[in-house]
């Protein structure tokens, strides 16, 4: 795995953590669902599933 790929995975992990933190801060359930849907592709990429 080349260095730039590893960096992209680190960036993906960072964004996933930020999205998860925003999910925890939200007070409206609609916004919580929105953050969760956005989070799923990042999780799947970190797990190397998609």
């Amino acid at each position, binding site marked *: 795995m080349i260095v*730039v*790929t590893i960096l*992209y995975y680190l960036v993906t992990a960072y964004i996933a953590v930020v999205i998860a933190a925003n*999910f*925890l801060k939200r*007070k409206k*359930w609609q916004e*919580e*669902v929105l953050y*969760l*849907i956005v*989070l*799923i592709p990042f*999780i*799947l*990429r970190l*797990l*190397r*599933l*998609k």
Partner: protein
Amino acid sequence: MVLRKIAIAALGAVLAVFAGLSFYHSRHLAEPVVPGPGVARVARLGDYFPGIRGGINDANIYILEGKEPGGSVLILGGTHPEEPAGRLAAWILAENAVPVKGRLFVILSANRSATTATRLGGAYPPDYTIPTAWGGQTFRMGDRWSNPLDQWPDPEVYLHYPTRQQLAYMDIRNLNRAFPGRPHGTLTEQTCWAICELIRREKIDVEIDLHEAELQYPVISTIVAHEKGQDLAAMASMMISSNEGFALGTEASPKALRGLSHREIGDHTDAVSLLLEAPEPFLDATRGRTGRELLLTGKDEFIVRAGKRGLLFEKIDEKGWPIDVRVGRHCSAILQILETWSEDKPNKAVMISGVPKYAEVIKNGTGAYLKDPKTAPAGKVIFE
């Protein structure tokens, strides 16, 4: 509020698990191959370039050797796995061909990584099944490009090596834009390099890359030939068009468009490089529902309408372009190219039997030429 967050997070986890399982099963669907009586041995692409050994693109190479010496021909299936007629025609060769003279090298998954993903946002089916007398064989749908799990990220601009021609950014993962490749490049470039190394080391005389094209693309129902192979392609085209019941044209490989197998393999190896295109309505931008039915029947009312408005480069009607027609065209084209080559170069002839022609594939169906892995002798099944 905490309980609500836990419930929503749990719902998200369920969605992620279901989606993840679906993607995992699609990526790891086993595709059995029962090598035919002509297969002398199965090598790996990594045998020719250790840089990809053991990796996703360490593809199987089915090597068929005739009793009489002759030339060597390489068939590439799965350069673009979303063009299934190419892979299926190669499958038929690996499971049925009996070489009489010379050697035939067959690769079913030239870009194996690209067989493990489908097009982002394309709503492709994850797989498709070819009906057989023993129940059917399921294949991974695949995509045009290597799976981003294996090569990521894409650059803003893709500069082809070694010409530095600027190509579309995602084509850095397109096997048919990365030839001749390089040993220290991306996975796709390394795979191209391995294929070129195979051609150089095995002294391949003719290389045939099997593809399909959308009907709105002008290079369709044709043999694209490097200048070294234009006589061969022209003669094969004439013979097919007069004897087989379908028309197949010829196109000259453009020198100004880089990275394609018909251009770079011809330029960087001693092989004559050819590329075959069959019609695949599934790929057309104006298609309707992008499902298994369209992939296998080639029937689509919207593409028929486009044809009535003169927007297509190939005919289409309500009968569509069934997979058996497309596979049969590739089979007959390969057989005719081998026959023409062998007549012209008797000391480098490659002659095979056991492979059905166009009319036979249409009559019996592609599935009639796929072998049942359950009844194959132990240890005789290989997985792509």
